[in-house]
């Protein structure tokens, strides 16, 4: 409970009175029911989809704001958390053969 993933509405249509749409998830498209968000969304909006139903509209402004804050915070802190994580790395994730240090190559 519950696999819900964000996708972008690329088409809206009506199926005998039921608001449906085609949602694009990073290159995969699927027909989804938009009945529960019908009044809030237009083509181009992002929704969270669970078992073929849009259950919410993604609050893009909120998302941008919080992500920017988190990103900035992580950059300000960088020296601290990298050092701490490396220390942890020796204790918790020690690999005798060596491995990717936490944080490297992991940025989305």
């Amino acid at each position, binding site marked *: *409970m*519950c*696999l819900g*993933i964000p996708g972008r509405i690329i088409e809206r249509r009506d199926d005998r009175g039921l608001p449906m749409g085609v949602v694009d*998830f*990073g*290159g*995969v*498209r*699927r027909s989804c029911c938009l009945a529960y968000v019908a009044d809030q969304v237009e083509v181009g909006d992002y929704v969270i989809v*669970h*078992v073929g139903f849009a259950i919410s509209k993604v609050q893009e402004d909120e998302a941008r704001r919080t992500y920017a804050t988190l990103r900035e915070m992580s950059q300000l802190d960088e020296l601290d958390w990298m050092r701490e*994580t490396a220390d942890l*790395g020796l204790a918790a*994730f020690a*690999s*005798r*053969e060596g*491995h*990717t*240090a*936490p*944080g490297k*190559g*992991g940025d989305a």
Partner: protein
Amino acid sequence: MTATTLTMSPSCPLPLPAMDRVQLGHGSGGKMSAELLRTHFLPLLDNPVLRQLGDAAVVLVPGGEIAMSTDTFVVSPLEFPGGNIGSLAVHGTLNDLAMMGARPRFLSTGFILEEGLPFDVLDRAIAAMAAAARESKVMLVAGDTKVVERGRADGMYVNTTGVGIIDAQFCPRPDAVRTGDVLLVSGPIARHGMAIMSAREGLEFEAQIESDSASLVPLVELLRERVGSAVHALRDPTRGGVASALNELAASSNVGVMLEEASINVPAPVAAACEMLGLDPLYVANEGVLVAFVDPASAADALAALRSHPLGASATIAGHAVADHRGMVVLVTRIGSRRVVDMLPGDQLPRIC
């Protein structure tokens, strides 16, 4: 909101699974498949060659060694983005031969056709088979067809058996991985399985995902020419995905395998389809990818060799073999944590949770 005290009746069934018949999971390439072999086939058919459970059997004949492999294709739907059962049937067996370092030469094939199968579907499969064989300069020298009543054979089942010539200087084997060996993955993963999924009833979605079904023979040739016996093991991760193939190699060679999540290439639409269905790309089938364990001194050359061919253009170094946790595959996640990647019991199932 009223308070409720839990009525304590911890309970759980003790299921006695009726393991008296074949289940779908037995064909998944995971633990149930291994158990099927161990419990039903090997005890009766055991011999030193079969016991090795390599991708192909290597046998001695007057003049040298040959490799022989057989595979039966039951894919549904018969035609999918990127190929059909005919091309798949050729690529699959050629690849199994190539994984033992053999140069494929001859194929035989058997078709089981369902009454009512449209001829144009059959013709397309045969044309694709012919084209795939021609492309790899392999001759189809023997064949058989049978027809069964409507309702059996899902349209068509195809078997291919292949024979290849072993080069004594180039013998990748599943038990030959050594600690320190570098793991290379030749290309983006999980394409075939998700291409099939996208066409499967009940889970339909549109995606620009094509099966990667292809002959790996050219890639193996490049490796042979460039680094030769520095290639210790090869495997094509078909059903069960990269995770199962690496587990098999780790077990056969008795080494541990470290796998780096960040170095594994999953194309965006494939990743999206996996997200949607709750599937892990590491367990999804591939038909045009190989994994190779190579001596560290030759790793850079091997990588360059793969990348010089379109099929291997996005090859990566994805991990290495270690002396720890022998027989286990451990993934280093993007955030630097580690977890065991085990073989699944049966097929991955799409989930809602």
